[in-house]
């Protein structure tokens, strides 16, 4: 698949040192299993005794750093600001759309460290130190990602408001599995909804053009 690669190379120490912790802790999520699982013995002694690690930030603005579409962005946000609102209102990254704002419709889908998430249901401060890819980061009108090109080719869009989320979710699905089965399509795109009714075209995108669709020619 051509287009910008979706990477998982976040520098996960995205809080500014002045206001917050010295990195590392946020990286523990995917740090793998240790034998002490579920017994509470896994924490390093250093972290456990680091008084700053339990500092409460906010409710006022907190300086954070994150990567958005390949560029390092630094800004001060209140903890209550969602990733979606932070992207749209603070960074003017308006590809992801706010539709349901309750983690249901998929229009705000972005990749966080390569994984599809609902940006409306993630606090921006939680994405500090991580890498965010929005639909704009996959490609541009002059250099479209394959999936974006396929959305054009199969007329998988009408008003276009669900499209950014669908493009990102579809790219994530096809990265996981280039030829998904019906249950895999259900699992991959069940969390995105369109109102105009563009599913025929999106089906064709997922099928790599083999599913008919609303194509040219």
């Amino acid at each position, binding site marked *: 698949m051509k287009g910008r690669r979706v990477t998982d190379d976040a520098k996960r120490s995205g809080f500014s040192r002045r206001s917050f912790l010295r990195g590392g802790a946020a990286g523990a*999520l995917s740090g793998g*299993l240790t034998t002490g699982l579920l017994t509470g013995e896994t924490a390093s002694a250093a972290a456990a005794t680091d008084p700053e690690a339990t500092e409460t930030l*906010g409710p006022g603005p907190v300086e954070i750093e994150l990567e958005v579409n390949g560029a390092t962005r630094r800004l001060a946000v209140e903890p209550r600001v969602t990733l979606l609102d932070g992207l749209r209102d603070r960074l003017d990254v308006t590809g992801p759309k706010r539709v349901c704002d309750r983690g249901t419709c998929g229009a705000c889908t972005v990749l966080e460290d390569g994984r599809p998430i609902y940006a409306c249901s993630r606090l921006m401060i939680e994405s500090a130190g991580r890498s965010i890819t929005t639909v704009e980061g996959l490609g541009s009108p002059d250099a479209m990602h394959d999936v974006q090109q396929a959305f054009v080719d199969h007329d998988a869009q009408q008003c276009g408001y669900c499209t950014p989320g669908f493009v990102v979710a579809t790219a994530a699905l096809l990265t996981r599995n280039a030829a998904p089965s019906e249950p895999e399509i259900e699992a991959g795109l069940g969390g995105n909804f369109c109102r105009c009714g563009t599913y025929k075209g999106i089906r064709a995108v997922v099928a790599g053009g083999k599913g008919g669709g609303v194509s040219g020619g």
Partner: protein
Amino acid sequence: MRPFGYAAPATVEQAVGLLAAEGSEALAGGTDLLSLLKDDVERVDRLVALRGVAGLSGIELDGGRLRVGAMTTLQELRDHEDAIEALPALAVAIDGVASAQLREMGTVGGDLLQRPRCWYYRRGFGLLALTADGRSMAAEGDNRYHAIFPAGEARFVNPSSLAPLLVALGAEAVVHGPAGERRLPVEALYRAPLSPGERENTLAPGELLAGVEANVDGSRSAVYEVRQRRSLDWPLMAAAVTLTGSGPRAEKARIVLGHAAPTPHVASAAGDLLSGQELTSETVAAAANAAVEDARPMSGNRYKVQLARTAVRRALGHAAGMEI
């Protein structure tokens, strides 16, 4: 959302310490809690982010014992081939969350402790949704998605995707708190609140669900969910069953309904009926009927009794590998 503070502890001890303070809530995947805060249904002074807490995430399968950290995402669990091979019903329960985004964000602990979806609760009328003069809004209003086994005035349903299966398996929850670790059956995490101030889970202030453990050897389990849409949609009803013993006879059967009651509903009469019995279409049908014998549907959810019967029948059929 109202303003709140944010803390990101690195250890379970730190998290427990932070959570002990009044007004603190644990933030896991965020897919439920942020909606509750946006709707002003719940309020917090401080969110304690568990994403960076060491040791809360991971999957272990050791001698038939499955251990899953509470911050393990549903997708991580779904992608763990050994766990799914040992307990295929997990895949059904997780795939029921038909949204890649929710599976990537949502955690095992978050799934178990998510708050009810009751539309009265979500609109600020409280878990019991009583009017000023003490009448039940759910009973008098629209209850098509509500409990067929209400408990007192609690008429919402437990929404967890994993709880019915874990309860059927007899899984244990591992809880950390100010007093250290305690273990309890997963079903003991839940209760039906009796008064408006009560929650539907039994965690004390400062306590944190760290993970779950279950024996997955020597039994057959299945989950069947009735969902209206194949796309993201709450089940209208779910059944999980675990049969011990092999062959056509079930030594012991545990049958648990989800989306049926304020807690995962253990249909013990139905399980008892099957225990020691050969599974035939007759015994399965009898168990399905027994599972709903004491159902008390309301004005608009009688159909859920039928759904429960069907879900039990189909789950049993899948677990026993028979056509029902």
